[in-house]
């Protein structure tokens, strides 16, 4: 086993998981209000916003990566903002990967949450209001606990999807060891260098990871058992 992963492999694995963890936390914070709004609003903007959130599902990752690269570049709006804030430019940095991944994985967090919120009966929220709970209180004491299966699904999908992304990473992160070279890029490098054995180890590891994550999700998530 010791020879299975090189230190560069391990570094790439570590980086991928670190990226996925940061992105998942940000996505839960950002995606939950978006999902709540999408689930409850009757506004005209529900359709357009829902479509924009879902775009990464259908667009090639290279397209998203390309536009993010342009936006984060020295002349792009995001780039000018980050420069004005003294952060510098985001492309080819870990922070840039985080921003790109947040966009790319957003639908995988928002959609399960939105479904979970939509399944909460209006009556439960009304009941809470008649029991003196404000809207915010109701959200935390009734809506979030009732949406727990969706929250779990959203976290797992957001995390796993970020671990597995490749196109966006390559476009805006490049391939810098310890900074932006995540597992999927490392596999690509191995294949390019004809190191098929190393590519196998990492790829099989990814397959096993994905399988175990989904197995745990389907086994322990109570969504299937709730009536």
């Amino acid at each position, binding site marked *: 086993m010791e020879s299975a992963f090189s230190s560069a492999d391990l570094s790439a694995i570590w980086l991928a998981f670190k990226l996925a963890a940061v992105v998942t936390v940000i996505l839960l914070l950002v995606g939950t209000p978006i999902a709540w709004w999408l689930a409850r609003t009757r506004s005209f903007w529900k359709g357009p916003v829902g479509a924009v959130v879902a775009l990464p599902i259908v667009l090639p990752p290279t397209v998203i990566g390309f536009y993010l690269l342009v936006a984060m570049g020295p002349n792009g709006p995001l780039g000018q903002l980050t420069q004005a804030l003294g952060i510098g430019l985001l492309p080819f940095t870990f922070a840039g990967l985080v921003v790109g991944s947040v966009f790319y994985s957003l639908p995988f967090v928002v959609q399960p949450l939105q479904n979970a919120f939509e399944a909460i009966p209006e009556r*439960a929220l009304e*009941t*809470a*209001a*008649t*029991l*003196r*709970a404000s809207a915010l209180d109701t959200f935390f004491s009734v809506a979030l*606990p*009732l949406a727990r299966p969706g929250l779990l699904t959203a976290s797992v999908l957001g995390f796993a999807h970020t671990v597995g992304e490749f196109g966006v990473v390559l476009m805006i992160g490049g391939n810098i060891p310890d900074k932006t070279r995540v597992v999927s890029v490392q596999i690509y490098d191995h294949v390019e260098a004809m190191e098929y054995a190393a590519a196998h180890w990492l790829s099989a590891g990814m397959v096993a990871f994905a399988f175990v994550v989904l197995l745990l999700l389907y086994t322990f998530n109570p969504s299937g058992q709730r009536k």
Partner: protein
Amino acid sequence: MIKARFDLSYPSFELHAELQLPAHGITALFGPSGSGKTTLLRCIAGLERIANGMLQVKDEVWQDGANFLPVHRRPLGYVFQEASLFPHLSVRQNLEYGLKRIPPAQRRVQAEQAVEWLGLSRLIARDSPAGLSGGERQRVAIARALLTSPRLLLMDEPLSALDAASKRDILPYLERLHGELDIPVIYVSHALDEVARLADQLVLMEQGCVIASGALNEILGRLDLPTAHLDDAGAVIEAGVAVHDEEYHLTRLDFSGGSLWVSRVERTIGSVVRARVLARDVSIATVAPQGTSISNILAVRIAGIRDEGPDRVNLRLTVGGSQVLLSRITRRSRDQLGLMPGMEVFAQVKSAALIA
């Protein structure tokens, strides 16, 4: 005093309600499905926000013009048709959900009290409300609402989703609350038997409009209202338990103007009870009946007669000074007996049911 006025016009639905209710006792909103009872109740709760509305509860304005007190700031309790317990909380946590959200100084109902009133001591240790029966869930929901120490309790057909047995179980608890709580209750129902049992005041609704409101007896005794056309139309008599006849297992109820024998009831002498006399169980004789098996015969005066379909008429009868009875007889009997308003006759009450 509770004053409310709500005006709403949708193409498919209208609500035009103006109400003044006493701030005590149980007021029933009664009417057929689609008459706007639930909408009116939801407007009072603030669950529906109607621009054109006014609501004042005692000396507090809850809605008027641009002022609108949000639901969670209104000191009310609401019991929905289905119990709506939170599935992610235990029974105790459900009960305490509202209690925890009001300052201790404002708590007038204690948890133990509510548990005792609604007979929940065996249920409170349950981890989840999932295993409770429909009646048990509704009792928990009522206790949960009471624990917010509401100044107005709103109940939207709390029994209609229950089977007959659960209904029988839960009604005594509601009657008990009526006796022990000094909270005005607005109770939506389309079941006349429930209303007759529980209500003090009655508000009749039809097609989004309030068509009559007043004391229960007064409304149920009127011939010109839809309640008189119902199959189970009838009057309610408040009477005192006077005598128990142990040999024949009967109890005599006395009221001003007469008395009624009913099946033996387990109430102490002197307690006040309600008996319901259905119009179809009251027949008329112009001379004092002899040799009849009917033991409840009251001297009454015909106060009004009104046609009820092609073959029947409803009579409004007064007993003594104030008590009213309804009687439903055939039109032919009316003509054969020559019954006219103002006549003194005898009402034969075939059965009277003690309801509360």
